[in-house]
Protein backbone atom coordinates (compact mmCIF):
# COMPACT_ATOMS: atom_id res chain seq x y z
CA UNK A 1 0.00 0.00 0.00
CA UNK A 2 2.82 2.33 0.95
CA UNK A 3 4.65 1.54 -2.32
CA UNK A 4 1.51 2.22 -4.36
CA UNK A 5 1.10 5.57 -2.65
CA UNK A 6 4.72 6.47 -3.30
CA UNK A 7 4.39 5.49 -6.98
CA UNK A 8 1.25 7.63 -7.30
CA UNK A 9 3.06 10.58 -5.77
CA UNK A 10 5.94 10.19 -8.25
CA UNK A 11 3.53 10.22 -11.21
CA UNK A 12 1.70 13.28 -9.89
CA UNK A 13 5.07 14.97 -9.41
CA UNK A 14 6.15 14.12 -12.98
CA UNK A 15 2.80 15.26 -14.38
CA UNK A 16 3.10 18.61 -12.61
CA UNK A 17 6.67 18.97 -13.93
CA UNK A 18 5.44 18.40 -17.50
CA UNK A 19 2.67 20.98 -17.01
CA UNK A 20 5.31 23.34 -15.68
CA UNK A 21 7.35 22.80 -18.87
CA UNK A 22 4.35 23.64 -21.06
CA UNK A 23 3.86 26.81 -19.01
CA UNK A 24 7.54 27.69 -19.47
CA UNK A 25 7.49 27.01 -23.21
CA UNK A 26 4.24 28.74 -24.12
CA UNK A 27 4.02 31.54 -21.58
CA UNK A 28 7.34 32.12 -19.79
CA UNK A 29 9.58 32.40 -22.87
CA UNK A 30 7.05 34.54 -24.73
CA UNK A 31 6.79 37.02 -21.86
CA UNK A 32 10.58 37.47 -22.00
CA UNK A 33 10.56 38.02 -25.78
CA UNK A 34 7.54 40.33 -25.60
CA UNK A 35 9.34 42.65 -23.19
CA UNK A 36 12.48 42.61 -25.36
CA UNK A 37 10.49 43.26 -28.55
CA UNK A 38 8.75 46.17 -26.87
CA UNK A 39 12.15 47.78 -26.17
CA UNK A 40 13.40 46.97 -29.68
CA UNK A 41 10.28 48.42 -31.34
CA UNK A 42 10.54 51.67 -29.37
CA UNK A 43 14.27 52.05 -30.09
CA UNK A 44 13.89 51.15 -33.76
CA UNK A 45 11.20 53.79 -34.21
CA UNK A 46 13.29 56.42 -32.38
CA UNK A 47 16.34 55.57 -34.49
CA UNK A 48 14.33 55.81 -37.72
CA UNK A 49 12.84 59.16 -36.75
CA UNK A 50 16.24 60.57 -35.81
CA UNK A 51 17.65 59.52 -39.18
CA UNK A 52 20.47 57.55 -37.53
CA UNK A 53 22.74 55.55 -39.81
CA UNK A 54 23.18 51.82 -39.24
CA UNK A 55 26.47 50.17 -38.32
CA UNK A 56 28.12 49.34 -41.69
CA UNK A 57 29.09 45.82 -40.56
CA UNK A 58 26.13 44.60 -38.51
CA UNK A 59 23.37 46.82 -39.90
CA UNK A 60 22.27 47.57 -36.33
CA UNK A 61 20.84 51.01 -35.70
CA UNK A 62 22.50 52.94 -32.86
CA UNK A 63 20.84 52.97 -29.47
CA UNK A 64 18.88 56.25 -29.16
CA UNK A 65 19.71 58.51 -26.21
CA UNK A 66 16.16 58.20 -24.94
CA UNK A 67 16.40 54.40 -25.02
CA UNK A 68 15.11 52.47 -22.03
CA UNK A 69 16.47 49.17 -23.33
CA UNK A 70 17.94 46.72 -20.85
CA UNK A 71 20.17 45.10 -23.47
CA UNK A 72 22.74 46.26 -26.01
CA UNK A 73 21.13 44.17 -28.76
CA UNK A 74 19.55 46.43 -31.38
CA UNK A 75 17.23 45.90 -34.30
CA UNK A 76 18.32 45.99 -37.93
CA UNK A 77 14.88 45.93 -39.58
CA UNK A 78 11.17 45.54 -38.99
CA UNK A 79 9.34 42.62 -40.59
CA UNK A 80 5.62 42.71 -41.18
CA UNK A 81 3.55 39.81 -42.49
CA UNK A 82 -0.04 41.12 -42.66
CA UNK A 83 -1.57 37.71 -43.49
CA UNK A 84 -0.47 36.17 -40.19
CA UNK A 85 -0.28 39.31 -38.05
CA UNK A 86 3.49 39.47 -37.65
CA UNK A 87 5.08 42.79 -36.73
CA UNK A 88 8.52 42.23 -35.22
CA UNK A 89 11.95 43.77 -35.05
CA UNK A 90 14.67 41.67 -36.69
CA UNK A 91 18.00 41.32 -34.88
CA UNK A 92 21.35 40.39 -36.38
CA UNK A 93 22.31 36.74 -35.83
CA UNK A 94 20.53 33.42 -35.51
CA UNK A 95 21.95 31.97 -32.31
CA UNK A 96 19.31 30.87 -29.82
CA UNK A 97 20.33 33.79 -27.59
CA UNK A 98 19.61 36.23 -30.44
CA UNK A 99 16.38 34.53 -31.50
CA UNK A 100 15.11 34.96 -27.96
CA UNK A 101 14.85 38.67 -28.88
CA UNK A 102 12.92 38.13 -32.11
CA UNK A 103 13.45 36.94 -35.69
CA UNK A 104 17.14 36.92 -36.64
CA UNK A 105 18.94 37.76 -39.87
CA UNK A 106 21.44 35.11 -41.04
CA UNK A 107 24.79 36.95 -41.04
CA UNK A 108 26.05 34.80 -43.92
CA UNK A 109 23.26 35.97 -46.24
CA UNK A 110 22.81 39.28 -48.09
CA UNK A 111 21.77 42.33 -46.12
CA UNK A 112 18.35 43.79 -46.86
CA UNK A 113 19.87 46.92 -48.36
CA UNK A 114 22.31 45.06 -50.63
CA UNK A 115 21.79 45.51 -54.36
CA UNK A 116 21.59 41.76 -55.00
CA UNK A 117 21.24 38.44 -53.22
CA UNK A 118 18.98 36.59 -50.85
CA UNK A 119 18.56 37.75 -47.26
CA UNK A 120 17.60 35.05 -44.76
CA UNK A 121 15.56 35.39 -41.57
CA UNK A 122 15.02 32.67 -38.95
CA UNK A 123 12.25 32.81 -36.37
CA UNK A 124 10.87 30.68 -33.57
CA UNK A 125 7.69 28.72 -34.07
CA UNK A 126 7.16 27.60 -30.49
CA UNK A 127 7.76 29.83 -27.50
CA UNK A 128 9.92 33.00 -27.46
CA UNK A 129 7.03 34.97 -28.96
CA UNK A 130 6.68 32.40 -31.78
CA UNK A 131 6.78 35.04 -34.55
CA UNK A 132 6.61 32.37 -37.28
CA UNK A 133 3.97 30.18 -35.62
CA UNK A 134 1.61 30.47 -38.61
CA UNK A 135 4.23 30.72 -41.35
CA UNK A 136 2.77 27.63 -43.02
CA UNK A 137 -0.42 29.61 -43.74
CA UNK A 138 1.37 31.79 -46.29
CA UNK A 139 0.34 31.13 -49.86
CA UNK A 140 1.94 32.16 -53.15
CA UNK A 141 1.38 35.87 -53.68
CA UNK A 142 1.19 36.83 -49.99
CA UNK A 143 3.25 39.85 -49.00
CA UNK A 144 6.07 40.28 -46.52
CA UNK A 145 7.28 43.82 -45.80
CA UNK A 146 10.76 44.56 -44.47
CA UNK A 147 11.54 48.08 -43.30
CA UNK A 148 15.12 49.26 -42.77
CA UNK A 149 16.63 52.68 -42.15
CA UNK A 150 17.20 53.01 -45.90
CA UNK A 151 14.06 51.65 -47.53
CA UNK A 152 10.88 49.64 -47.30
CA UNK A 153 10.96 46.38 -49.25
CA UNK A 154 7.86 44.48 -50.26
CA UNK A 155 8.40 40.81 -51.08
CA UNK A 156 5.93 38.35 -52.55
CA UNK A 157 5.88 34.70 -51.61
CA UNK A 158 6.78 32.44 -54.50
CA UNK A 159 7.09 28.94 -53.06
CA UNK A 160 7.93 26.91 -49.97
CA UNK A 161 9.89 23.79 -49.08
CA UNK A 162 10.42 21.52 -46.11
CA UNK A 163 14.00 20.37 -45.63
CA UNK A 164 15.90 18.54 -42.95
CA UNK A 165 18.29 20.59 -40.79
CA UNK A 166 21.65 21.31 -42.36
CA UNK A 167 20.38 22.23 -45.83
CA UNK A 168 22.07 25.62 -45.71
CA UNK A 169 21.99 25.88 -49.50
CA UNK A 170 18.36 27.04 -49.34
CA UNK A 171 19.64 30.34 -47.95
CA UNK A 172 21.06 31.12 -51.38
CA UNK A 173 17.49 31.72 -52.52
CA UNK A 174 15.00 30.11 -54.81
CA UNK A 175 16.99 28.44 -57.64
CA UNK A 176 14.03 28.87 -60.02
CA UNK A 177 13.72 32.59 -59.41
CA UNK A 178 15.38 35.26 -61.53
CA UNK A 179 14.76 38.05 -59.03
CA UNK A 180 17.95 39.90 -58.11
CA UNK A 181 16.78 40.36 -54.53
CA UNK A 182 15.10 37.64 -52.54
CA UNK A 183 14.05 36.86 -49.01
CA UNK A 184 14.17 33.44 -47.36
CA UNK A 185 12.25 32.77 -44.13
CA UNK A 186 13.05 29.68 -42.07
CA UNK A 187 11.43 28.11 -39.03
CA UNK A 188 10.92 24.73 -37.37
CA UNK A 189 8.34 22.28 -38.65
CA UNK A 190 6.11 20.47 -37.71
CA UNK A 191 4.91 22.79 -34.97
CA UNK A 192 6.29 22.04 -31.49
CA UNK A 193 9.25 20.07 -32.83
CA UNK A 194 12.69 20.82 -34.27
CA UNK A 195 12.60 17.89 -36.71
CA UNK A 196 12.58 19.73 -40.04
CA UNK A 197 12.74 23.29 -41.35
CA UNK A 198 10.01 25.12 -43.27
CA UNK A 199 11.53 27.38 -45.92
CA UNK A 200 9.59 30.23 -47.54
CA UNK A 201 11.04 31.82 -50.69
CA UNK A 202 10.04 35.35 -51.62
CA UNK A 203 10.97 37.70 -54.47
CA UNK A 204 11.33 41.44 -54.12
CA UNK A 205 8.42 43.24 -55.76
CA UNK A 206 8.85 46.82 -54.65
CA UNK A 207 11.53 48.97 -53.04
CA UNK A 208 10.65 52.41 -51.65
CA UNK A 209 13.65 54.43 -50.39
CA UNK A 210 13.08 56.38 -47.17
CA UNK A 211 12.61 60.09 -47.80
Amino acid at each position, binding site marked *: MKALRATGSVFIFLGLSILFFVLY*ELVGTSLVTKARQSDLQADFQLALESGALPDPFTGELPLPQASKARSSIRGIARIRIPKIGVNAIVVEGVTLERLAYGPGH*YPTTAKFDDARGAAGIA*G*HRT*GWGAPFFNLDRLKAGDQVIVETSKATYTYRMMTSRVVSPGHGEVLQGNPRSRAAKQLVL*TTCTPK*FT*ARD*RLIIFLDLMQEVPRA
Partner: protein
Amino acid sequence: MRIFPKKRGPRIAIKLALVLGYAASLWFWVFPWLDRTFVNRPAL
Protein backbone atom coordinates in the same frame (compact mmCIF):
# COMPACT_ATOMS: atom_id res chain seq x y z
CA MET B 1 13.87 6.94 9.81
CA ARG B 2 12.69 10.57 9.89
CA ILE B 3 13.75 12.74 6.95
CA PHE B 4 12.15 16.03 7.92
CA PRO B 5 12.22 17.71 11.34
CA LYS B 6 9.39 16.98 13.73
CA LYS B 7 8.53 20.64 14.30
CA ARG B 8 6.01 22.08 11.84
CA GLY B 9 7.79 25.35 11.06
CA PRO B 10 11.19 23.96 10.02
CA ARG B 11 9.50 21.05 8.23
CA ILE B 12 7.42 23.39 6.05
CA ALA B 13 10.43 25.67 5.44
CA ILE B 14 12.58 22.76 4.24
CA LYS B 15 9.83 21.38 2.02
CA LEU B 16 9.22 24.85 0.53
CA ALA B 17 12.94 25.29 -0.13
CA LEU B 18 13.09 21.88 -1.84
CA VAL B 19 10.09 22.65 -4.06
CA LEU B 20 11.41 26.10 -4.99
CA GLY B 21 14.90 24.69 -5.67
CA TYR B 22 13.43 21.97 -7.85
CA ALA B 23 11.28 24.48 -9.77
CA ALA B 24 14.25 26.83 -10.24
CA SER B 25 16.49 24.04 -11.53
CA LEU B 26 13.78 23.05 -14.02
CA TRP B 27 13.19 26.65 -15.14
CA PHE B 28 16.82 27.70 -15.52
CA TRP B 29 18.57 24.48 -16.59
CA VAL B 30 16.32 21.60 -17.57
CA PHE B 31 13.65 23.48 -19.56
CA PRO B 32 16.11 25.61 -21.59
CA TRP B 33 17.99 22.42 -22.48
CA LEU B 34 14.77 20.65 -23.51
CA ASP B 35 13.75 23.73 -25.52
CA ARG B 36 16.97 24.01 -27.52
CA THR B 37 17.38 20.25 -27.94
CA PHE B 38 13.90 19.10 -28.89
CA VAL B 39 11.54 22.02 -29.49
CA ASN B 40 13.31 24.98 -31.04
CA ARG B 41 16.18 25.21 -33.50
CA PRO B 42 14.75 27.34 -36.28
CA ALA B 43 18.10 28.23 -37.87
CA LEU B 44 19.60 25.86 -40.43
